[in-house]
């Protein structure tokens, strides 16, 4: 736990500051709710339906690719620290790892997952 105690105190301080701010505005601000004020904002017209509708599949795809890459980077941290000791062997091992991931990346690229606009706009 060496060095982590200040971080816990820091979290408490930050949360106390934010919580106190929200609480203070509850007491200091006026309370005058009307049905229009409490409706979700949709440019002045009455809101239509629920906001939580289906969303584009692209967001899910990006999230999944991100997950793969982020795990790759998580593997890279210890490798980067120990690179001196690992030498060329470690270097080529990570290159093989890269190549496997890159083949997937190229597949995703060619499939058009990373293209968000229509073809002509690019």
């Amino acid at each position, binding site marked *: 736990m060496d*060095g*982590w105690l*200040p*971080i816990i*105190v*820091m*979290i408490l*301080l*930050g*949360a106390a*500051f*934010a*919580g106190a*701010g*929200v609480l*203070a*505005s509850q007491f200091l*601000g*006026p*309370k*005058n709710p009307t*049905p229009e*004020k*409490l*409706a*979700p*904002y*949709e*440019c002045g017209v009455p*809101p239509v339906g*629920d*906001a*939580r509708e289906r*969303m584009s599949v692209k*967001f899910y795809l*990006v*999230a999944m690719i*991100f997950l793969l*890459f*982020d795990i790759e980077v998580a593997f*890279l*941290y210890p490798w*980067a*620290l120990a*690179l*001196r000791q690992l*030498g*060329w062997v470690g*270097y080529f091992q*990570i*290159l093989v790892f*890269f190549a496997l991931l*890159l083949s997937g990346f190229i597949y995703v*690229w060619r499939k058009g997952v*990373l*293209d*968000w*606009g229509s073809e002509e*706009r*690019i």
Partner: protein
Amino acid sequence: MIDMVVIPVFKMLVVITAVLSAVAYMVLLERKVQAWVQVRLGPMRVGPHGVLQPIADVLKLITKEDVRPASADRFLFTLAPILVVVPALIVFAVVPFGTSTTMFGKEISLYITDLDIGLLYIVSVASIGLYGLILGGWASNSKYPLLSSLRASAQIVSYEVAVTMTLVSLIVTAGSLSLVEIVKAQEAHGVWYVFIQPVAFVIFVIGALAETNRAPFDLPEAEQELVGGFHTEYSGMRFALFFLAEYTNMIVVSAVGVTMFLGGWLAPFSSVSWLAWLGLVPGWVWFSLKTFLLLSLFLWIRATLPRYRYDQLMRLGWKVLIPLALVNLAVSAVLKVLL
């Protein structure tokens, strides 16, 4: 007792206060810079040249009516702004503002704590703030905030990969994850890492703009399309917390960028003999100056560049920056093994 409790807590309070006041004046500075670029005066009414504007803003925000939409999720709606602010603030726990100073006959280190995995801590804590953005958009149960938080999450996640890869190539060069050790390694090398890793620095700055939702990548807040972004339904202090977190994040990425690439608290031109007197200035002054320079760059970019389109943004992130960061990493690893 004094060494264990009073000094660390005092340091935390100083850091939090300094960051919060820096945020307040960043808002004013941004408005002023925007105004100057557009040949206007900017805020002039509150105090001479508007210097008291931030105080007026805070007072106004705290005494405003706090509206919560009837269809919003009560708990998450309040949790979201807090979840955005706290990670932004606690990143400063590992940022070194200098080595150490003597105050009242005591040796005081100018950082709150020095973790062995400081950089990993920053990367992981900084991404917690994203949960706040998503929850804020989701809990509002309103169409524009939800769209905006979806955009924000996809955008931040895309640039996260490129930024962390540049950080890994920097770890390769520095050989440590501790921020204090990284600055000391730059001192030992005798050159800041921006000159060893220029490509990484450029990717880092672009990624930092995208991850803090700053222009030209401020698509989650594109007011022509999405009204106000993920905080459309927020008002009063909860809105202020979102605002605060955005500017705190700007200061965070600048401070981290300065530590990683611009030599942290080190004085410039340390090898030039007739400029050696620059080393007499305390380290935290250099640190603040460099952070201020990087922040000014952000403001300058905001005032100069138009906003990107979403497909351009994703193309830049995935098809340019990530391959570039990979190549940069491979090259710096070769150099590390060779030298």
